[in-house]
């Protein structure tokens, strides 16, 4: 069985509410049944007392004249004639005793012979002075009445009353209550299920669409669905649709901005690449010219060719790094140590231009299971930002390693420090976070989105004396497939 079936937190309202109704009904039914049965019990006891009182009144009247004479026959005759004469009260036996509790006559003479002592167990039931003793388990009750004339006790009447009928009546009431309440519980639960299911249907529609929003889609709720709802839910649906429209627009804007950032970065890199290609080009042209003029001299030829080779190698590195960055890595979902090494070539132009010292530490293994392309772009963005933020002759440090099962990349500069809004954006970025206003922070925003998509996070330390250290951590095992919505 699936865990959601066991955990009530995962049950839907259409199950919870009818179940709650059923539980409440059972609770109410139990309380009502208890109250009814208690009242019946009280009523029956009262009724029993009344009936027993009437019975004893009748017997008393009938036997009282015979007690002073201790007339066995007339007493028995009165008891015998009273047998079955009282509707609603079934006396199993009745005993009339003399003041010393010797039996004068009983309706069951063989069981209670004349002149025998009234059984102790029967007498003990009335020791506390009460006149009625009920034993529901035995379905029996016992009553006693003292016959007194002129303050003299003439005798006593004991009677055992059969409660089977009363208890059967109570049992029937209980069975009826249980049957009726069970029926009502099932009925209410069924009605509750249908009503709640109908009531929460709009919520289900809304939940489905909200879930789609969470996964990136911003589908509107169809107008047909909106028109079917009650005014409250129709208004809610319309508000959702307005929100979906706004999200859709924002998503488009974000995509556009990302594209623009990419283009801007591309422009910057193209410029850097042109510079990197141009720098050796002068020397290489001089070398060709020298070769043309003094190529016959082996030393000159070797020196020129070496110069040409170094110049072309530099150009090749720059071109290859750009290719890897923008055409993708050889193995998607994998970052090689070399992929990050190449980034030095892509920021070389900036470090040279600003006379920066690049402290480079790459302690990664040859291959790491993360989205290589995304990591490269995010790292490149942060490196370029660090270079831009650093003062002339400043230092930018880079450190990459595996720590605690995560890819940990630290990039530090000694610039004026990352503006707090940008730092905040990086720490708390969501897929829906918009880039900060103004021209600054776009690269950071892009990096934040990329890291977020890889389920990574940032640790940003801005020193009061200047300088920023950004550390990003990306889970190695759990990172998701790269999403190229931004890249």
């Amino acid at each position, binding site marked *: 069985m699936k865990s959601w079936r066991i955990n009530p937190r995962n049950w839907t309202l259409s199950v919870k509410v009818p179940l709650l109704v059923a539980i409440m009904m059972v609770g109410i039914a139990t309380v009502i049944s208890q109250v009814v049965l208690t009242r019946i019990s009280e009523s029956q006891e009262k009724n029993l007392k009344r009936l027993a009182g009437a019975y004893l009144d009748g017997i008393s009247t009938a036997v009282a004249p015979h007690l002073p004479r201790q007339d*066995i026959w007339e007493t028995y005759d009165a008891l015998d004639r009273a047998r079955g004469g009282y509707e609603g009260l079934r006396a199993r036996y009745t005993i009339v005793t003399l003041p010393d509790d010797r039996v004068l006559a009983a309706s069951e*003479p063989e069981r209670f012979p004349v002149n025998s002592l009234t059984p102790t167990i029967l007498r003990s039931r009335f020791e506390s002075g009460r006149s009625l003793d009920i034993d529901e388990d035995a379905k029996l009750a016992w009553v006693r009445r003292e016959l007194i004339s002129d303050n003299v006790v003439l005798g006593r009447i004991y009677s055992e009353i059969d409660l089977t009928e009363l208890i059967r009546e109570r049992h029937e009431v209980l069975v009826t209550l249980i049957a009726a309440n069970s029926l009502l519980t099932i009925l209410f639960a069924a009605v509750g299920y249908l009503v709640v299911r109908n009531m929460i249907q709009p919520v289900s529609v809304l939940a489905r669409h909200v879930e789609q929003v969470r996964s990136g889609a911003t589908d509107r709720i169809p107008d047909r669905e909106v028109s079917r709802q009650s005014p409250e839910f129709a208004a809610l649906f319309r508000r959702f649709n307005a929100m979906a429209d706004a999200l859709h627009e924002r998503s488009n804007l974000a995509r556009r901005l990302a594209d623009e950032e990419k283009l801007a970065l591309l422009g910057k890199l193209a410029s850097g690449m042109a510079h990197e290609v141009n720098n050796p080009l002068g020397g290489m042209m001089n070398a060709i010219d020298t070769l043309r003029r003094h190529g016959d001299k082996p030393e000159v030829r070797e020196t020129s060719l070496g110069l040409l080779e170094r110049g072309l190698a530099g150009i090749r590195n720059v071109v290859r790094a750009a290719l890897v960055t923008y055409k993708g890595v050889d193995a998607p979902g994998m970052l090689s140590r070399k992929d990050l090494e190449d980034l030095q070539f892509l920021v070389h132009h900036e470090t040279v231009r600003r006379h920066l010292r690049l402290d480079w530490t790459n302690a990664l293994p040859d291959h790491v299971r993360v989205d290589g392309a995304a990591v490269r772009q995010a790292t490149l963005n942060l490196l370029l930002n660090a270079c831009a933020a650093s003062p002339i002759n400043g230092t930018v440090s880079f450190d990459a390693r595996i720590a605690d099962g995560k890819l940990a990349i630290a990039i530090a500069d000694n610039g004026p420090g990352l503006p707090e809004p940008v730092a905040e954006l990086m720490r708390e970025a969501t897929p829906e976070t918009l880039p900060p206003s103004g021209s600054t922070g776009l690269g950071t925003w892009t990096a934040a989105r990329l890291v977020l998509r890889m389920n990574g996070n940032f640790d940003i330390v801005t020193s009061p004396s200047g300088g920023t250290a950004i550390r990003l951590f990306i889970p190695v095992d759990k990172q998701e497939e790269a999403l190229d919505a931004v890249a």
Partner: protein
Amino acid sequence: MENKPPNRRTMWGRRSVLAAGGATLLAPATTWAEQPPVRFGLTPVFLDSDIQLLAALEQYLSGQIGRPVSLVKKRTYQEITLMLLSGQLDAAWICGFPYVQYRSQLSLLAIPVYNGRPEYQSYLIAGAQNPASSIHDLRGHIHAFSDPNSNSGFLVTRAELAKLRETPESFFADTFFTYGHRNVIRAVSSGLAGSGSVDGYVWDVMSSLEDEMVSHTRVVRKSDWFGFPPVACTRTARNSGTVQSIAQALFRMADEEQGRQILSTLHLDGFAEGDDILFDGIARNYALVKEQA
């Protein structure tokens, strides 16, 4: 004893009564209903609770006598006997024991014939499971008597105990009177009493009428034969027209349809003129008991 009931047709048959009733409508004198009723006493016999029987008897006697008849019932033999002796009753169906007690003042008017004879027995009965075979086995029982003035329901047993030099108080654990032979059977049948003294005629008839109740009892001992409880009147009223008409009505009972139905209900053959000698046995027992007292 062959005291065959008279076989004469009554001059006051049912049709005659109706005719007489019709005639009185035209008569200027007192009407039939205005005449003083004939008062006939009944002791608590076994069917004293049978209202239909009493109504039928009253109707029969009224029809036969030509006057309204009032049946007087009392709880005890003594009450009826005293009412008879004091002239409050014209005649009464009493027990042989009071008849013997007041023999000098009472006169035998008629005697029922049961199973062809004007005699009956007293039975000592006990619970059906009681293996007693004689009165000796009943010692220590709670004993039910019918009436202190009943021959079969008291005197016979009392006399038998006297012969044993015992009294009911010394012989039995406790005794009580039920004032009715049927009640004696009820008392023994229910277990209220361990044994009882009862009219044999009543026990025999009851065993066919209320078999369930009587089946819980058994006869331990049957007594000698005694004169059946007689219909008696005072000696002074013996020759009055009313008393004579009562006697005639009783003698004719077996000849009349309504009378036969009554006799059938009572399980009697009819009524006959009795002989005082039938009650000598009761007189002897009475003397024995008086002697012990």
